[in-house]
């Protein structure tokens, strides 16, 4: 009886291939789902490959515009499973499997940017994780650290920008969280140092800007101390950004701003002069 079942399951895979070729995707799906659930064929790289192809086409037909697509996830999982089960490299269609995975990977990638804002960033991160998982499998040169740095620094800068417009603490916290995550991966870029420096600097300025004009005078040094502390936190980041890219006049202007905030007239004048000279060029 066991061999009869085995034949039956193999037939299901073959029948699914026929239905897939005839573009009868829903029927192919039923058969191939059944086949990969069955112990006789659930270790068969070909069954998983067919399932991957079927789900990829279903995704293209039904969910291509959805950033969160279960059909695409099933296609990706199936194709990865197929590659991993083909331990002896017998699959003559391995290139097709890889090509399909590259296609799916590119759709995850494109969908990252579709939802990359302060509302949809979590979906972007989900798609990013899936994109990354495939890239790690099919691209030996894939640089995971750089990828994570790029993603975190971008998300952080998006929250930073939104914070500047809405000044909500939750936005500030998220900006800081993601920029610092990126900083932990690579603290040697002018981008991350500029953004962190500006984040702290802007906070420092906002404390004074939002301060009530009627506050008791004994409170004024307290506000100033809070502002100065943030300015001092901003300083090393902008100094590093300046060191990495001395020709960046935005950093020079930012440094002048920090020194002004810190009441360091000598340094303020030095950077103000530099900035004005750069503007003349």
């Amino acid at each position, binding site marked *: 009886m066991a061999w009869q079942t085995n034949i039956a399951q193999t037939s299901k895979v073959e029948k699914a291939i026929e239905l897939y070729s005839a573009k009868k995707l829903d029927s192919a799906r039923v058969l191939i789902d059944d086949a990969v659930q069955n112990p006789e064929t659930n270790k068969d790289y070909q069954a998983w490959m067919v399932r991957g192809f079927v789900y990829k086409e279903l995704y293209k037909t039904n969910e291509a515009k959805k950033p969160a697509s279960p059909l695409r996830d099933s296609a990706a999982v199936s194709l990865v499973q197929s590659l991993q089960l083909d331990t002896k490299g017998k699959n003559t269609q391995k290139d097709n499997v890889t090509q399909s995975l590259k296609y799916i990977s590119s759709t995850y*990638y*494109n969908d*990252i*940017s579709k939802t*990359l804002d302060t509302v949809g960033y979590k979906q972007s991160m989900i798609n990013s994780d899936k994109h990354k998982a495939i890239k790690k499998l099919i691209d030996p040169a894939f640089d995971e650290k*750089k*990828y994570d740095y*790029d993603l975190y*620094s*971008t998300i952080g*800068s*998006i929250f*930073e*920008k939104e914070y*500047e417009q809405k000044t909500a603490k939750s936005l500030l916290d998220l900006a800081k969280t993601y920029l610092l995550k990126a900083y932990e991966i690579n603290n040697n*870029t002018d*981008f991350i140092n*500029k*953004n962190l*420096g*500006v984040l702290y*600097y*802007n906070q420092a*300025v906002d404390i*004074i*800007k939002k*301060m009530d*004009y009627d*506050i*008791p*005078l*004994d409170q*004024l*040094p307290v506000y*100033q*101390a809070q*502002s*100065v502390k943030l*300015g*001092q936190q901003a300083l090393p980041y902008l100094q590093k950004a300046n060191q990495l890219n001395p020709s960046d006049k*935005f*950093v020079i*202007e*930012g440094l*002048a*701003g920090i020194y*002004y*905030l*810190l*009441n*360091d007239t000598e340094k*303020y004048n030095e950077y103000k002069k530099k900035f004005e000279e750069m503007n003349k060029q």
Partner: protein
Amino acid sequence: MRKVLLLFIAFLTLSADWVEYPLLQQKDDTQAKIKAVYIYGFTKYFEWTNNKDGNFTITVLGENSNLVNELNITIRNKMVGSQKIEVRNHASIADIEKVNILYITPDKSNLLSEALAKFKGKSVLIITEKQGLAKIGATINFIVKENIQKFELNKAAASKAGLNMGAGIEKLAVSVID
């Protein structure tokens, strides 16, 4: 000082779609606001024994348009006693006729002696911003201590000027000259 929001382009090699573009944003002059809050705050700690006719006048001697603007925001809808507050800006002492608070910018510090002579006993609170000026007659002199804007107080100068000091001002000063 203008505050610049430096949001720079993310150098994502993966896609231009992810990029955040630079945004340049101009903001307020923080030091001007701090000084404006101090200057208005002093109206609550001093009593002008005379000089009570007309508007209560705060004059900035020298160039500091940001401070003038901040003062104008600060004093909006505010009074000193029954006097309406107004802010003026002059380049020379000769141009000043009536004043209650005179703030002398650092670059006009050399005019302190002239101001002291002109407004002696006329209930004018003179505020300066240069090291040593409290010792030579300014009632208030702004100084920076540990990156923070604070002030020195010259009690004798206040008395000579015809100003009564309220309780608490001495505690706020970083140093007091008797």
